[in-house]
């Protein structure tokens, strides 16, 4: 079976019903997407499937094979951060950091639809992402700030 991850094709040997999360982590060695619960309850495994935020622990790889899958690895690197990642760092959002890739993927899906989300927009979009360290207030602030920065970049006609 073929999978398209971050624009690249991969030949997969995992069984059809293997959750995408475990294909990413165990077959492809892509460890940025995290295992938190395996039940779609915590959001740590969030990736994008055709631009929508999905819980990869609940997506069988057979279904994923027909989609464009985007993971945290596609956003940026410590030396070349995505604007959302940059704001996350500026506001010192992460503590333990385990939930943050999932948080960022959910946040980015929201911001791609709406660069000026209200508090209840943010609640709705982010309610499936748990943070035990309690960084929620900073996540909210970072989403709003990232939205502003992304908006001003796109208003100037810039990329991302």
């Amino acid at each position: 079976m073929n999978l398209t991850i971050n624009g690249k094709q991969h030949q997969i040997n995992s069984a059809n019903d293997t959750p995408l999360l475990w294909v990413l982590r165990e077959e492809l060695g892509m460890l940025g997407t995290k295992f938190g619960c395996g039940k779609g309850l915590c959001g740590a495994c969030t990736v994008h499937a055709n631009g929508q935020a999905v819980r990869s622990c609940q997506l069988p790889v057979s279904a994923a094979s027909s989609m464009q899958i985007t993971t945290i690895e596609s956003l940026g690197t410590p030396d070349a951060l995505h604007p959302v990642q940059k704001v996350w760092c500026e506001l010192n959002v992460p503590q333990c950091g385990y939930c943050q890739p999932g948080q960022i993927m959910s946040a980015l899906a929201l911001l791609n639809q709406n660069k000026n989300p209200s508090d209840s927009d943010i609640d709705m979009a982010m309610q499936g992402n748990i943070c035990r360290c309690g960084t929620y207030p900073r996540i909210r602030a970072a989403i709003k700030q990232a939205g502003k920065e992304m908006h001003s970049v796109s208003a100037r006609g810039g990329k991302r």
Partner: protein
Amino acid sequence: MSKELRGYTEMSRRSFLSVMAMTAGSLVIGIQLQPLAESEARAAGSDPFVPNAWIKIHPSGIYEFVLDKTEMGQGVMTSLATLVCEELDLDLDQLTIVFAGADDRYKTPGFGMQITGGSTSVKTSFIPLREAAASTRFLLVSAAAKRLQVRPEEVQVDRGMLFAKQAPSQKLSFADVCGDASLMPLPKKIVLKDPTRFRLIGKSQKRVDAASKVCGTAMFGIDAKPKDAWCAYVIRSPFLGGTVKTFDPTEAKKQPGVKAVVQIPRGVAVVAERWWLAKNAADHVRVEWDKGQLGDKNHAQIYQVYQDALQNESGKIFTDRGNLKNVSAQVKTWVDAEITIPFAPHATMEPQNGFADVKTDGADLIGPTQGPGLARDIVARNLGFAREQVRVTQTFIGGGFGRRLPQDYLEDAAAISAAVKQPVQMVYTREDDMRHDYFRPGNVHRLRAGLDAQGSLISWQHKMVGPSIMTQLMPLWGPSNMPAWLPKFISSPLANIAADYTAWRNDDGTSTEGAADMEYAVPNMQMEYVIKDVGIPVGFWRSVGHSFTGFVVETFIDMCAHAAAQDPIQFRLDLLQASPRRAAVLKEVAKLANWSTRAEQGRFLGVAQVYSFSSYAAHIAEVEVKDRQIKVKKIFVACDCGLVVNPDQVRAQIESAIIYGCRQRYTTS
């Protein structure tokens, strides 16, 4: 950008600094710098200059800081790097930070063990780390002075460059002079930077680990599996403390990818090429369990055991002040309460996991541990190795809160690896993680207070029943505190005896902290604790005893204030006249929350103050109650935590603690 190495680096055995913890109670560490005569100490060729256990200056230009604490979100990586950079006048992104791993040179003073916990990292590192960095600076400056042919006092240090005041264009880097620095005479006295000249300490910094965490490249324990190692899922008892009676692996062994099915102390391990395959195969194993001490007691039954002890048993009297019997004649109003505290899970986002590669002559462990030295000692004992034969590499931790202090996850990985003779990573499911925890103890409290005719609080009686963390842990941890040369057949029984003695005397202060030493100046007071262990594993949970004694004491003092028809803050202040720092945070938070005008404004506020682990805090919660649902609108905080290294990090921790605490619910009757 701070370049974090992956933490596999072991401390160089050629480091010759010994860090000595002084006698019990003292937090002073003497840094003994051995004579630098040995040629291996010299930074020759590509060998680094290693002036102490924390700092390595590589001639290649890498400035390495060995972090001997675990980073689990609490920010010590940044704070401790800040201390080093302050004295060396480096920027944070000029340091390459590696985790220390198991190494007795890093035993935390006061604990006698290498652990991260108890809010001790910044406090116990503040002087020693700065001294290490300052003495390193001294040697670098001496070397530069000699090269530049000036006096050391004329050498300036700026972001890794050394130059003479009078000739600033002639610059040498730390890397340039580190070879010579290793030959310089040591300072007779280490001089630390004067606080008035702090560049970094006291200012908010960006976390050095934020970038890797937002990119998903930061390596947690669960990410640390070497590519070809096997994966294990352990089938665990549905009864806490239960053990395997029999198991049938036949069907499971036929499942795809399965390599082995083996029994370990805590259950049956299914081992496969991939964890997903191991977990699925586990459904095919038939296991029969022996129930442990707890059996299948339910919540009500467990708490009935506590209630019975509350009524019928005596424990240790931790505090006995004045004369409760005599004073009762003066009591006009009695206030009574029984408070039930639930067991609380840690619920770290990263499920428990550990990696072990056990060979015939030793073992390598990798995991998200808060106690690398403990892991080494316990696994070495379990496997019959000497401590030196076990090496522990630590990773970032996806949530600690005390859960990673017991080393069970590394014990399990080691047991599995030893059984299958292969490197193995063991990972919990979320369900197992929530159930197989070392819970914050649940307990019951009975309180009775007496107010006199003037409404003054004149008597306070508090009895508590519940399990004891120390009696459960001492058999495991005790041997680590004893000399390494003591053989297992002596150290283990000794630790067990100590645990039994503690239990017999009901003497566990981690259960009573905050209650036994309550500072409300009630003239007649008694606090009693009965240890009752029903077989639920318990452990350290964020703020330990204070997590429930804070609630109990503050709830009850509030009830007393209301019974006395007095303002809850003023009532407290009247009893805290000998505790100025507690009084100060109370007054400050009252101002912040506009406490005095709350009635006119129609706002409902509640207050609490706690001193724990060296910090004073007072919080006011503004709440709304609608249809019996409590909504917390706002929390106001005043915190006195002494000298602050990183203000934003302290703020982040307070925000974190508030949300962590809000998730617990308590019942009062």
